[in-house]
């Protein structure tokens, strides 16, 4: 391990000296972040300019439950916090969202009140603007708050009373019934809405990992360079284990990879307001993704004979993984084997992990981190075998 550090420090010193460290770890991610800012800046940064709390509502129920919800919304609007626009049909509301007239629309389906009073559940559907995740999040919590309030029997009883369905004498009975009933409002698809990064951020994340494939191969490529420069022979006759050579090269790759990705994350957050999520979780994902990519690239580099050959192979593998991982063309969940394959790539996993992180916090991203570490371990073991054979000759 001592020897591995000595080798890694020497490599880093060389990379600082020939400036490739600055290019790989600092300049390139900054340039990438700037490019992203130019390309996506308007959509990602736009939200920060001012929160757009313009809601739409479609009341197809026109029953006591929906009335109560609409009046809740109206009271928020009356405080001047938001605007509420009523629409006659779902189609109109969707069109308004797509046109950017409202940021999110609540759909109160026909029969919502009746279903609730009959003891069943009801759903409030939310249609949101993909570029206004915060507004959609707020809409979700409004609906959520309404749902938990209505879950208390008092409100159920009140709506029943107002509708004249029962007399005041039965009130206690209704209240008890309502408390035992399933939650009246289940928030359809909230999971899907919140557990997905907004497209620009996820695209940036995908490109960042794609970029990692070129950065994290540096260590193993430099081993091939040492081989053609003859210094590898000197390492091989030195009293150090052969494993320390590979370990030293991997340490170099990991340091450069983590440094570079960290700078990209921070720079894109500042420049374009990309929201990566809780720092601890992002750090965990960054490190595990870099380890996975270093493992894969070491394996690929170990199969090559020359530094050029290695760089070419790494480029091919980098592009292939980016395509499989949905970096260039998003892969919809329904696309069978491709959708599964996506999560065997560091690219797909990293983006999914960030989504989990944004939607449900650090613990939700742990399985993805473990998957990335598993890729790192498997590829790493194969890399050791392949590189050890390379060092034999």
């Amino acid at each position, binding site marked *: 391990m001592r*020897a591995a550090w000595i080798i890694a420090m020497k490599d880093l010193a060389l990379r600082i000296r020939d400036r490739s460290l600055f290019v790989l770890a600092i300049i390139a991610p900054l340039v990438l972040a700037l490019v992203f800012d130019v390309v996506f800046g308007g959509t990602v940064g736009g939200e920060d300019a001012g929160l757009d709390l313009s809601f739409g509502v479609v009341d197809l129920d026109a029953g006591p439950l929906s009335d109560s919800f609409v009046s809740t919304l109206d009271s928020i609007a009356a405080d001047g916090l938001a605007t509420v626009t009523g629409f006659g049909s779902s189609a109109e509301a969707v069109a308004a969202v797509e046109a950017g007239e409202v940021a999110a629309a609540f759909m109160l389906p026909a029969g919502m009140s009746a279903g609730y009073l009959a003891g069943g559940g009801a759903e409030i559907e939310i249609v949101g603007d993909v570029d206004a995740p915060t507004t959609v999040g707020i809409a979700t919590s409004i609906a959520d708050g309404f749902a938990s309030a209505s879950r208390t029997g008092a409100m159920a009883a009140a709506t029943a009373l107002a509708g004249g369905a029962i007399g005041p004498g039965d009130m206690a009975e209704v209240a008890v019934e309502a408390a035992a009933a399933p939650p009246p409002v289940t928030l359809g698809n909230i999971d899907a809405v919140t557990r997905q990064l907004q497209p620009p951020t996820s695209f940036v994340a995908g490109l960042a990992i794609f970029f990692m494939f070129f950065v994290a191969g540096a260590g193993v490529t430099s081993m091939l360079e040492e081989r053609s420069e*003859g210094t590898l022979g000197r390492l091989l006759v030195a009293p150090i284990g052969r494993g320390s050579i590979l370990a030293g090269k991997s340490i170099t790759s990991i340091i450069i990879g983590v440094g570079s990705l960290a700078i990209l994350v921070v720079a894109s957050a500042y420049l374009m307001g990309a929201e990566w999520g809780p720092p601890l979780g992002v750090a965990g994902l960054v490190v595990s993704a870099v380890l996975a990519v270093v493992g894969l690239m070491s394996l690929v580099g170990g199969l090559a004979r020359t530094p050029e050959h290695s760089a070419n192979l790494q480029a091919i593998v980098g592009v292939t993984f980016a395509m499989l991982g949905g970096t260039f063309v998003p892969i919809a969940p329904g696309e069978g084997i491709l959708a599964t394959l996506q999560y065997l790539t560091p690219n797909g996993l990293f983006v999914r992990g960030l989504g989990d992180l944004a939607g449900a916090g650090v613990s939700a991203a742990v399985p993805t981190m473990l998957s990335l570490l598993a890729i790192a371990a498997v590829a790493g073991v194969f890399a050791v075998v392949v590189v050890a054979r390379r060092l034999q000759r």
Partner: protein
Amino acid sequence: MGGNGPVLEAVGLRKRFGDLEAVRGVGFTIDPGETYGLLGPNGAGKTTTISMVSGLLEKDAGEVTIAGLPVTTTALEPKRLVGLVPQEVAIYPDLTARENLRFFGRLYEMTGKALAQRIDEVLAVIGLSDRADDRAKDFSGGMKRRLNIGIGLLHRPALLILDEPTVGVDPQSRNAILESIEELSAEGMAVLYTTHYMEEAERLCDRVGIIDQGEIRAEGTRRQLVESIGEQDRLRIEASGPLREVSARLGELPGVTGTSAGDGVVEVLADDGGAILSPALALLAAAGVAVSSVTIEEPDLEAVFLHLTGKALRD
């Protein structure tokens, strides 16, 4: 170390690359303080042999021990005792001379003051003290070679292996290199030296192994080797014309034991140089070869090599 056994013992080394058996049963021993030369032409198997000796290359067959420790590609103990100076300069061009030495010193577990001090000593030995903090890429070819040697002797190895360390070096630097090797040897370091320069082998080596096509053809002190071929003279003829054809026909003259043709030179090994002179010149004239000079030399390692292999060291 400093014990009574040999520093290096190699027995029956073999190495095959595909169809080519590059080393075919090579063995030799080197005692403490002894300088052993492997003298042979390009492709003889010198580098392959020392790669196995230093634990760089897996052997197909044979045994190597250094101070009694078996050498393999993974055994670390014997590696501590060996310093290798590879044939091709192997240094980091973007590091300074001092940084190159420091990096390799650390790999050999040297640290702190002891390392810094040893680096200064080595820089003095290789004559790079005043360029110590310049990057190696700005060095001349000879300076790079000297740094290449310095890295090999930094950790005071019991056995220093040098693979043709003077190729491409000007006569002055070359002399400096040879002198420092002589000094190290006088201090008790065992040296394994490969070369295809006869003069270097004659000057430096206590014993020489003549290697050709992967085999050691003869071994001994210079005197033993020269005596082994008997009283022989070497005729060195500088000439121009169809030298290769002519050299074959020279070989058929009575009393000739070997011939070779090189770049503008034909060499003839004969029992009696004086007796062969006039028939040889007549033959050359008849073949239309223009002779510019002829010398008759006392037997030397070049003659031994010619005798053993029927060719010159430098083809």
